């Protein structure tokens, strides 16, 4: 019996699996998360993996959360320790009163355990070795066997797991039956030899509703399909590769002409990021909807072309799945660290549109909208995801599409318009919104052609190095960026229950942790209004929010508080009034971290908690 009372909790705990990369555990671990979902209990899983193919440690964390908190919580209630290399660290990370699940085939010295946790040993290797002769089978089925044992320990319904196995191996009867057999090997051993269930339990609920379980990258790729992207050029880079791979899979399914079998899309794996964005720009210049997906180092390589897109006013969509930088940084760890690099990408004076989805549902919506925005504004649009959204499954509302929706192709002067005698000046601000008309190559035999270039030119696209002509063009680009403020998704504001002079600004994947942190802060008596920024340029409501609060915390996942820098730069606000709350160790930000950082700061300000004042 441990010297600390074992944690007892139903539908609210964290299980972390420690495995060796390449051991085939991912499938079983994900099935564990999905099985809990089938119980009607929300989960929030996260992959924590190395920049390596095989051999190094990998972790998969499942937060079981009946309350639906989808951010990382921090701490581990049960560790499934399957990697000897990380044993000490894994055991040390268990919450007092927590549980350690391990392979007890070989005896371990008592010094390898802790007195304040419950140790659960299952002789997994012995069971697999006595059942299977093939070494690969032994490795793979060991994962299913521990899944079976966990189902007994956590009081899960085995039929729901069998159902999942059935769906996964539909049409492959041999695999199906052998997996179900392995599941019951582990389950039966636990039931016969261990006290089941333990304090952590899964109880059927109805808290999942109609929500779907999808990775952000896959949702963004689907958004590109629905948004009408026909050209995708990309270069593999973690954590963005699965965007292009998912786009390829979706297109193969939904984009082939039923009569001819031909593809209504073109996907090219470029030789590098420079070629990928070049292909996107060439395709967009010629009137196709095109995009690329990359991460920070790819953005660095693309910046010259991004400047061209800005200055020559060519649409482009870049999905940036951010990871920890700078340089190679931590390629498989999450951050929101490319804000400045993308907002002002390339040399000279530039400003680019950034979209910040909070979850896969918004990744889908914003990805589709990015193509409308790119063509409407004739510039690069960045869809700013990060590894935490992109490569992890998230519960989110179902994806929606309005069949009446038509693509906004922006200001394109057609052959008919040219024939009517419309004055075509490629960089002429006809409507006062800073957005000129363009023509597609091949439109008209004698009218509407122009020369696209990255050098200065006048309103009729004629090369010019005249200062006033250059300045006129640059001012129009500023007007265009101002127009963008009302076209991009607006910030969403939620006010505290009581009036407060404190606010918090956050964005993207910080959202679920922030939502949970607000509850924790309120419990400490701190009231905060909050504003979730969803795009740059900032809507005027951001300035209003800043004006209405004495102090505003800016929560983000990078070292230098890049969003805060951008807000200061674009709004001319006194930086002292914006308090940075930064988290940048590569792990997803947690509610605990936010609540502590803001709470401590509030205390430092000698703020009297409202609860205390009331009492």
């Amino acid at each position: 019996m441990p010297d600390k009372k074992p944690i007892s909790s139903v539908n609210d705990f964290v299980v972390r699996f420690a495995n060796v990369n390449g051991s085939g555990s991912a499938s079983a671990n994900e099935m564990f998360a999905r099985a809990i979902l089938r119980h009607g209990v929300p989960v929030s899983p996260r992959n924590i993996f190395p920049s390596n193919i095989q051999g190094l440690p990998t972790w998969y964390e499942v937060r079981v959360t009946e309350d639906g908190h989808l951010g990382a919580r921090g701490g581990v209630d049960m560790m499934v320790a399957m990697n000897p290399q990380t044993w000490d660290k894994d055991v040390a990370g268990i919450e007092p009163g927590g549980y350690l699940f391990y392979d007890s085939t070989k005896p371990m010295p008592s010094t390898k355990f802790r007195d304040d946790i419950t140790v659960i040993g299952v002789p997994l290797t012995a069971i697999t070795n006595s059942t299977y002769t093939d070494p690969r089978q032994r490795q793979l089925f060991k994962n299913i066997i521990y899944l079976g044992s966990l189902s007994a320990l956590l009081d899960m319904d085995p039929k729901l797991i069998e159902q999942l196995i059935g769906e996964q191996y539909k049409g492959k009867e041999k695999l199906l039956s052998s997996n179900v057999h392995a599941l019951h090997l582990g389950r039966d051993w636990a039931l016969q030899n261990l006290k089941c269930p333990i304090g952590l339990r899964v109880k059927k609920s109805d808290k999942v509703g109609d929500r779907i379980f999808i990775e952000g990258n896959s949702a963004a790729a689907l958004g590109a399909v629905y948004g009408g992207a026909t050209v995708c050029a990309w270069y593999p880079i973690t954590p963005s590769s699965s965007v292009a791979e998912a786009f390829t899979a979706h297109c193969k399914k939904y984009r082939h002409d039923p009569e001819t079998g031909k593809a209504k899309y073109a996907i090219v794996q470029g030789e590098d990021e420079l070629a990928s964005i070049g292909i996107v720009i060439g395709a967009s210049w010629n009137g196709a909807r095109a995009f690329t997906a990359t991460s920070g180092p790819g953005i660095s390589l693309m910046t010259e072309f991004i400047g061209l897109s800005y200055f020559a006013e060519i649409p482009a969509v870049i999905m940036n799945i951010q990871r920890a930088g700078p340089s190679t940084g931590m390629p498989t760890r999450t951050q929101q660290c490319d804000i400045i690099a993308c907002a002002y990408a390339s040399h000279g004076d530039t400003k680019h549109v950034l979209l910040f989805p909070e979850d896969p549902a918004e990744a889908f919506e914003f990805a589709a909208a990015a193509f409308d925005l790119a063509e409407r504004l004739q510039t690069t649009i960045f869809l700013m995801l990060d590894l935490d959204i992109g490569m992890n499954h998230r519960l989110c509302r179902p994806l929606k599409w309005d069949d009446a929706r038509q693509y906004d192709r922006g200001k394109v002067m057609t052959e008919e318009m040219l024939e009517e005698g419309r004055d075509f000046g490629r960089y002429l601000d006809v409507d006062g919104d800073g957005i000129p008309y363009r023509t597609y190559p091949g439109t008209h035999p004698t009218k509407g052609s122009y020369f696209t270039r990255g050098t200065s030119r006048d309103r009729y696209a004629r090369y010019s190095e005249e200062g006033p002509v250059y300045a006129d063009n640059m001012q129009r680009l500023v007007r265009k960026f101002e127009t963008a403020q009302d076209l991009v998704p607006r910030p969403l504001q939620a006010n505290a229950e009581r009036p407060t002079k404190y606010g918090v600004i956050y964005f993207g994947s910080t959202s679920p942790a922030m939502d949970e942190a607000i509850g924790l802060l309120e419990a400490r008596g701190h009231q905060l209004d909050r504003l979730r920024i969803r795009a740059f340029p900032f809507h005027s409501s951001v300035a209003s929010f800043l004006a209405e609060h004495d102090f505003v915390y800016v929560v983000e996942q990078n070292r230098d508080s890049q969003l805060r820098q951008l807000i200061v730069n674009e709004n001319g606000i006194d930086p002292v009034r914006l308090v940075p709350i930064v988290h940048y160790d590569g792990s997803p930000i947690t509610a605990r971290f936010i609540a502590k950082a803001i709470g401590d700061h509030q205390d430092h300000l000698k703020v009297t908690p409202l609860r205390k004042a009331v009492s």
Partner: protein
Amino acid sequence: MTYIAKPKFHHPGLKKNELGYTHRDYEGKISTLCAGCGHDSITASIIEACYELSIEPHRVAKISGIGCSSKTPDYFLGNSHGFNSVHGRMPSVLTGANLANRDLIYLGVSGDGDSASIGFGQFAHSIRRGVNMTYIVENNGVYGLTKGQFSATADRGSKSKKGVTNTDNAIDLVAIALQLGATFVARSFSGDKTQLVPLIAAAIRHKGASFIDVISPCIAFNNHAGSTKSFDYVREHNDAVNRLDVLVGRDPIAVDYAPGTVQMVEQHDGSKIALRKIDADYDPHDRLGAQTFLAKHAAKGQIVTGLLYVDPDAEDLHEHLNTVETPLNTLEADALCPGSAVLDKINASLR
């Protein structure tokens, strides 16, 4: 790029092609390159080739990178859309444009600095992919805009105008294009319009990646004793493998070709190239033979010109990708969007 617009006046009696266009309809702005620049001769050959093929000028997209050569698309086909992109990246921009609309004709114009250095990778990969384009390198072995530095095609041992000897080996873009699978490979000399015009015309008609390396002496920085890309040097060392004519299913374009050994090469679109061999043993269908021939003559310090290799059954990138015949840039939501009913099914599969 020029500040000076070309006068619109032209003689009413100018000869017209079968579409009713005159040479003037294929011209662009006045060149601002140095008087006597080989690039202007190439511009004239492009104009001539497009005129002879009776191409609708506005159906050509002309794309370039950065440098003297990349300025030239402004000087031809004034009613075409042009794109002066960034240094060395013409091939990717052209590839994207081609993917968006397969119905246009794509002319990629580049230089040796543009294609053999910063753009070497993009050159290689666009050839490798079989993009349907005519890729012309205006090759003078020197950086003209920055006043005389060696480019990567400058021969080892050649001297700069300042007297510096080049100690680096030269990149032979033709040899590389052959190795990478280009289905139309040629080399010519800017001063040999008789050879260059039909080569360009044939390249435009070819379906697939056509590559033409045109030796184009730089009048300002690479036309001196010691240079291997000067007018005098090239004239002395030019060894043409063949002469050719282009038949586009209509009356043959008149060229000066003598009777003798003639080989007809049928192109993918039905047009034919008639090759008149100077070297009786030369076979333009033999990629390996072309590579050997090129290497052998290079070892002798000779410049081989002419159509070195052509594959009449070439496929292009669109065929590799199996894309629809309809240009992708014309497809709208009804053709591209799977709709809400499909999305509902996708949602259901994600629970």
